[in-house]
């Protein structure tokens, strides 16, 4: 404490009242422990065989000081040292049970005892502070590392986003400026216009992904659960992914008695859209896709199966990470599956990929059934 250059009792700058209060409480506890140590040392000293050699007794007291100073601050250590000297004098130095001293040589013993005790407590104090400092340092460097990682993620996001948005934008600009040229024949005009439309739509999709990711990360995502038949959500997702799926054969097979699920339809729709667009992007044109679901007790498990090359086992986990892109030749920021994971997690479910029975990948996720589905009575027994 002395080498801190701080007046004793003063609180270090910037220390909150809570921390200070904790320190004060610690100090009080330390004093209590110091007293207990001295009592214990006295008892041990009294119990020592062979009419107590004073040097042994001193050692026992010093041990107490070491114990206290290892665990507590300066004030408890000092208390322990002084109390030790007093007890030593009172109980062991003749004449007993008085603070009077026969042999002035014993005064030297007291002095040495005090010095040794304060040196010990000073040393252990320093050891403790050193440990504290390295703990703080480790914490700081961990935080710095986290900050750096966040910074790296942000710049990766920025570069990925600007690339992802610029590519379609460049196509739009190019096509539109070509259209300004009056010599362009009508057939090419038509083609360029189609291109502009397609790229603009893809731009919209990417922006939506980005927005979703930001909302997921920022914790701004609100899950508005309502009991939904999965079929309807799949229906709206198929309509949205219609263009990406082109002429693919998508089969939907749901058990006729599949329960309703408590979900936010717009979010789960997004999961389906992302999985379908992903399948469309990474599997050969024209290969079929199959959506199925089954009841697994406390949840409904959904599967989107394709007949593509499948996902290597080594990538099965990382594929759901942000910015992960399975192939560099396929455009996209690598956010789609990360968004799926975020949305499924927000519903309390999990998402994974496994090899499909038909060859290809099977993306699966669970939607837990929480609570009781509302009953809707039949208006007529249909025959």
């Amino acid at each position: 404490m002395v080498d801190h250059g701080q007046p004793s009792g003063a609180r270090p700058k910037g220390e909150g009242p809570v921390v200070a209060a904790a320190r004060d409480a610690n100090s009080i506890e330390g004093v209590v422990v110091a007293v207990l140590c001295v009592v214990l040392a006295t008892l041990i000293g009294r119990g020592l065989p062979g009419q107590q050699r004073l040097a042994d007794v001193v050692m026992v007291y010093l041990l107490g000081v070491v114990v206290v100073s290892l665990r507590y601050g300066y004030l408890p250590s000092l208390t322990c040292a002084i109390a030790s000297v007093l007890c030593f004098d009172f109980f062991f130095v003749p004449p007993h049970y008085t603070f009077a001293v026969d042999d002035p040589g014993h005064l030297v013993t007291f002095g040495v005892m005090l010095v040794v005790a304060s040196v010990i407590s000073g040393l252990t104090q320093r050891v403790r502070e050193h440990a504290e400092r390295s703990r703080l340092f480790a914490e700081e460097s961990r935080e710095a590392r986290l900050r750096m990682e966040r910074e790296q993620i942000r710049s990766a996001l920025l570069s990925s986003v600007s690339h992802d948005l610029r590519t379609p934008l460049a196509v739009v600009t190019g096509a539109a400026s070509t259209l300004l040229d009056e010599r362009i024949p009508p057939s090419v005009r038509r083609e360029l216009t189609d291109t502009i439309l397609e790229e603009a739509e893809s731009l919209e999709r990417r922006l939506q992904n980005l927005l979703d990711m930001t909302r997921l990360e920022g914790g701004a995502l609100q899950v508005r659960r309502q009991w939904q038949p999965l079929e309807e959500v799949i229906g709206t997702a198929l309509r949205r992914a219609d263009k990406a799926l082109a002429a693919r054969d998508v089969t939907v097979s749901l058990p006729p008695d599949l329960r309703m699920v408590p979900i936010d339809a717009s979010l789960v729709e997004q999961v389906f859209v992302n999985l379908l667009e992903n399948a469309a992007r990474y599997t050969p044109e024209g290969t079929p896709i199959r959506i199925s679901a089954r009841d697994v007790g406390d949840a409904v498990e959904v599967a989107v199966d394709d007949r593509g090359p499948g996902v290597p086992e080594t990538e099965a986990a990382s594929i759901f990470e942000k910015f992960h892109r399975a192939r560099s030749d396929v455009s996209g920021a690598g956010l789609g599956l990360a968004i799926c994971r975020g949305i499924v997690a927000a519903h309390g479910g999990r998402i994974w990929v496994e090899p499909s029975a038909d060859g290809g990948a099977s993306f699966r996720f669970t939607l837990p059934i929480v609570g009781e589905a509302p009953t809707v009575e039949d208006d007529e027994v249909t025959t």
Partner: protein
Amino acid sequence: MTRTGPLVLLVEDEAHMRRFLRASLTAHGYRLVETATAAEAMRQAKAYNPDLVILDLGLPDRPGGEVIRALREWSAAPIVVISARGQEQDKIDALDGGADDYLTKPFGTGELLARLRVALRRAERVGQEAETTLSMGDVSIDFTKRVVTVSGREVHLTPIEYKLLAALGRNAGMVLTHRQLLEQVWGPTYVDQTQYLRVYMAQLRHKIEADPARPRHLVTEPGVGYRLRVDSDDASRGPIKET
């Protein structure tokens, strides 16, 4: 052939949006009055008495809902609102407040023209006798006999299923909000029981759709409501009837 197409009041504050809307609307025979603010829109509506209003919900001066309410005090002209994605509640409020349909930005002109046609067609029918039959593709509804057939074969519907289909059929091509449907089919005390609607809609789809997971007729408008799609909505057609 002289064409005096329907007069559209376009209320949109984005100049570029107005430009492309103007281009496609005038190309399809509509006449146009444009404004960029709600205040101006109210004046123009009184001055021109348009056949249809296209209203952006994100106007700078006043919320779109106020414009709809004010218009509805004296005008029955169909209102089609334009809004951004994620503003589902705004859309629902606008529809429940008297708007007839909506479009979510970004949209293509095909979609826009189809919506306008449906809205105008329905406005035309107001006051006339209700149609007695409706057919779209393989499905037809006979409102007088209360009979629904799919590919010529009669389908047995429960009373509620029929009421639901009929409600959508009477507004064919237009969106109906959850609230509007619940009120019309189940009654005013059921307006929050959307699960009723979902369950019966699923049943109805299984009876009249070839693939219930990919409905051709009973279309979900996510977060807003349902729409009975009319197959004849061909985007390339203009508002003027052929004869």
